[in-house]
């Protein structure tokens, strides 16, 4: 009873401490969100210096988007994401398994971890600019390939759909596989060593151990990685934007949804940008909900990793 009284008189401090967060969120996220949704129902754009609208048009923007190239841009985004994600998850699983397997005598573990995580911190736009310079027709990569005699003519990497998409995929792969490896490693280290010991006694080899013990045990964190990566993929912007100078060349086959949104924002077509944002918002909400369910589960994926990192200190 005494305790309850104590909490009561301190309650106001709780409100005061969380106030800045919620005020900031209200002003910089909630008002913009409401505004975005509102103008998605209006015809509101600028042509030249003349401003058209805002006129209420109902769902016209939404329908117009469905008939525009939006769906093919959504397809592009998915393809670009897949090209980066599939090798990323395969390599990350392999590396995480090796890093945690004590029976392998791996040298320089810390060095490799530092190196593979490095590209994650690099400015995506500068990285894309670097790739643009390196892979241009008279760039160093072509020069290297020709000096080794792999090709006589310089290859126009960014002239083909396949080339551009592969470059974007390669960049995304390089930027994220280290991060995923380290996440999965923590998950594997969270598995009780007893289980591995038992499986060893039963005589299962590395391959069996991986498929029958490791993989099922880290399924929650795998699912978590997948969903957060989809959300990241949905936001893909910097790399293709800089690599193709916002054009999504060739023939807009590397144009992503956010690049499309950006072009509407730059041309001040608020109605269309609003409707596109609402589509993105709906998709992200579903994904957010899945993440919410995962992080609030009893055996949430990150809690195990968290405990491990803290040296098993009690929560």
């Amino acid at each position: 009873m005494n305790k309850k009284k104590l909490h009561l008189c301190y309650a106001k401090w709780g409100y005061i401490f969380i106030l800045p967060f919620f005020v900031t969120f209200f002003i910089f996220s909630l008002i913009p969100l409401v505004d975005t949704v509102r103008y998605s129902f209006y015809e509101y754009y600028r042509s030249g210096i003349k401003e058209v609208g805002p006129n209420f048009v109902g769902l016209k923007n939404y329908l117009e988007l469905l008939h525009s190239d939006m769906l093919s841009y959504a397809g592009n985004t998915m393809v670009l994401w897949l090209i980066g994600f599939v090798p990323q998850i395969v390599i990350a699983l392999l590396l995480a398994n090796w890093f945690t397997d004590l029976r392998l005598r791996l040298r320089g573990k810390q060095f490799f971890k530092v190196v593979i995580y490095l590209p994650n911190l690099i400015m995506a736009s500068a990285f894309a600019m670097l790739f643009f310079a390196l892979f241009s027709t008279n760039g160093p990569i072509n020069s290297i390939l020709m000096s080794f005699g792999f090709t006589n003519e310089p290859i126009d990497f960014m002239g083909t759909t396949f080339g551009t998409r592969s470059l974007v995929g390669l960049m995304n792969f390089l930027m994220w596989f280290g991060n995923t490896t380290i996440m999965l490693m923590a998950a594997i280290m969270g598995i009780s060593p007893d289980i591995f010991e038992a499986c060893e006694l039963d005589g299962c080899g590395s391959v069996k151990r991986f498929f029958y013990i490791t993989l099922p045990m880290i399924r929650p964190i795998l699912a978590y990685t997948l969903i957060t990566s989809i959300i990241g993929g949905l936001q893909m912007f910097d790399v293709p934007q800089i690599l193709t100078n916002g054009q999504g060349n060739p023939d807009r086959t590397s144009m992503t949804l956010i690049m499309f949104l950006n072009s509407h924002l730059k041309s001040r077509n608020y109605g269309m940008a609003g409707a596109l944002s609402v589509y993105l918002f709906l998709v992200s909400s579903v994904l957010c909900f899945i993440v919410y369910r995962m992080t609030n589960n009893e055996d949430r994926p990150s809690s195990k990793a968290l405990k491990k990192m803290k040296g098993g200190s009690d929560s």
Partner: protein
Amino acid sequence: MKRTTHKLGETVLAHIVLIVLSFLCLFFFYILLVNATRSHADLQKGFSWIPGNYFFENLKSVANDGSFPMFKGIVNSLIVSTCSAALCTYFSALTAYGLYAYQFRFKKLAFTFIMAILVMPTQVTAMGFLRLMTNIGLYDSLLPLIIPSIASPAVFYFMYSYLKSSLPLSLVEAARIDGSSEFLTFNRIVIPIMKPAMAVQAIFTFVGSWNNYFVPALIIQSKDKMTVPILIATLRGADYMNFDMGKIYMMITVAIVPIIIVYLLLSKYIIAGITLGGVKE
């Protein structure tokens, strides 16, 4: 007997794969650094594995270029990233402490709300954000890049998890009995305990802000307020073929290298922090 040889094979294979991947990660940066030290004329002749001696010449021409004020951009980026990191870590810790240490009516609702928006992309509100900033006169200012970092759900979640595992509430009670005010308790007792978590998150927020391109590109208009990523984008949009290539490589180097140096110095903490973070894009 057979078993050990099998493991040996796998060890060798693991090393080969790791070396190939490390090579892939470092290769592009090596070319970047080599090319940044060579002159435009040298670069035209083709690629060389050996660095040239044009490093300072290139650096000087980057510094003196008025149309791409790279060093002004670095100063802007430093201001934005430092302020964001400071605001974000302090207020996330404050919010986490408020929700962890106090009992109040809307506590659960507030927590649920933050968890629900944990991974919501900022891009979906960009249009309203741009309009709001234009209307309140913050268009083309650095403030809209800094202030919103006060509300960072992912950093909050990290801080909250950390508090839960390392701050016993009895410590707060003890401070109260000693007559410490609530704010003082937070600043003098809770913050020191949270230092490791705050350091890790400060690094990640700094890097995220340093690399951020989408929002600054919408908000910033004038050249002297541009941050580094926007300058890189302008560089890409300009008539690129007529440029001194040595200078271009040097500009990319200048944008990337500060982060690499910080990373190499703090890599131990950063690597340990990734899994603690749990929630990142």
